């Protein structure tokens, strides 16, 4: 379901943290929410979605949000 308003902001915050912790997104990317449609961030999102076996929408859809909230291992999925 499409996210609205503060719910979207909260979702974007979780997404940014997830990409930073597990997919090597540079930490503290400023105004991540504004940049969510820029190609580097879309690429990152798609990389995550591909790794986790999700549809590669490049967007914060509900399946992606649901999987990001599942318990998991703290080791990154890509990178060192």
């Amino acid at each position, binding site marked *: 379901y499409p996210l609205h308003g503060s719910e979207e902001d909260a979702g974007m915050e979780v997404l940014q943290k997830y990409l930073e912790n597990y997919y090597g997104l540079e930490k503290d990317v400023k105004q991540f929410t504004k940049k969510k449609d820029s190609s580097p961030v879309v690429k990152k999102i798609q990389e995550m979605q591909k790794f986790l076996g999700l549809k590669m929408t490049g967007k914060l859809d509900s399946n992606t949000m649901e999987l990001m909230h599942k318990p*998991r291992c703290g080791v990154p999925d890509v990178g060192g």
Partner: protein
Amino acid sequence: FSTFPGSPKWRKNHISYRIVNYTLDLPRESVDSAIERALKVWEEVTPLTFSRISEGEADIMISFAVEEHGDFIPFDGPGMVLAHAYAPGPGTNGDAHFDDDERWTDDVTGTNLFLVAAHELGHSLGLFHSANAEALMYPVYKSSTDLARFHLSQDDVDGIQSLYGPPTESPDVLVVPTKSNSLDPETLPMCSSALSFDAVSTLRGEVLFFKDRHFWRKSLRTPEPGFYLISSFWPSLPSNMDAAYEVTNRDTVFILKGNQIWAIRGHEELAGYPKSIHTLGLPETVQKIDAAISLKDQKKTYFFVEDKFWRFDEKKQSMDPEFPRKIAENFPGIGTKVDAVFEAFGFLYFFSGSSQLEFDPNAGKVTHILKSNSWFNC
């Protein structure tokens, strides 16, 4: 599958581990057993062997912690990150940390320690995360995993064998079946009317039904029994055992196969076993026990062999005189092919093939004839 960048791995096949501290969520021996079983998962498909040390620096240091715990990668409270581990190497490398804000359990009602430990120890051995959703090394925890049928996926086996090769004694690459056929081909499903048992014993208020390499564990609290590999609890116990019985006041279950007897206490395998059954005072002519049961009130243990039985005095630790006696004379209605026997609710339940006879010791007669798997809520 993938390995850590640079494929770090242990340059030796014998690796030490230490359980530095414990979660309060589980009894200590459950934690010990979960870690041991998690290591065994990898041991079975590689040349690696593991030994536990209780002090000093081990290759793999296993600990439970909350939030900031010294490695600048703090845990995050309940949920989300459950644990993390480091690639092989000195110091913190190779170690596995578990978030003690989780509720650790030995079933799937909480976070299953065995499952998470098997995953984290995959990291400790050099595996990185896998994008294969069926793999143990997939990063997201799967609470729906059927523990009774747990096995590594082919992706996990390929991954760990890319680092260490197959087990040394197997002539060719060991492939763990990816279909859930962890049941032996000849082990029938739980509700098959033809199911029979090798041995049945109580254990701390539960009942264990042994069959080939597995056992069903029946607790009065749950309608469905759990199904486990014997070796996942007691690695040195034999499969296809002949008999088993619990001596309650010693908190010990004895397992019999051929002319040998083993002893276990909870998860622990007691030292000094197996021993010969003849140390109990059975004659040399007896080379195999069909079934056995120890009656707490009498402090006597009965060994059934073909059409006869012996009786052992647990207090005196010696066989009673004037035995063997005929089973038919003392247990009318019980035939000569007893597979297993256990006591519940004051009755003795004798198993023979797919049938079970409920025997009332006070009335001295068989009161019911049941299917052997009548305890399984089929």
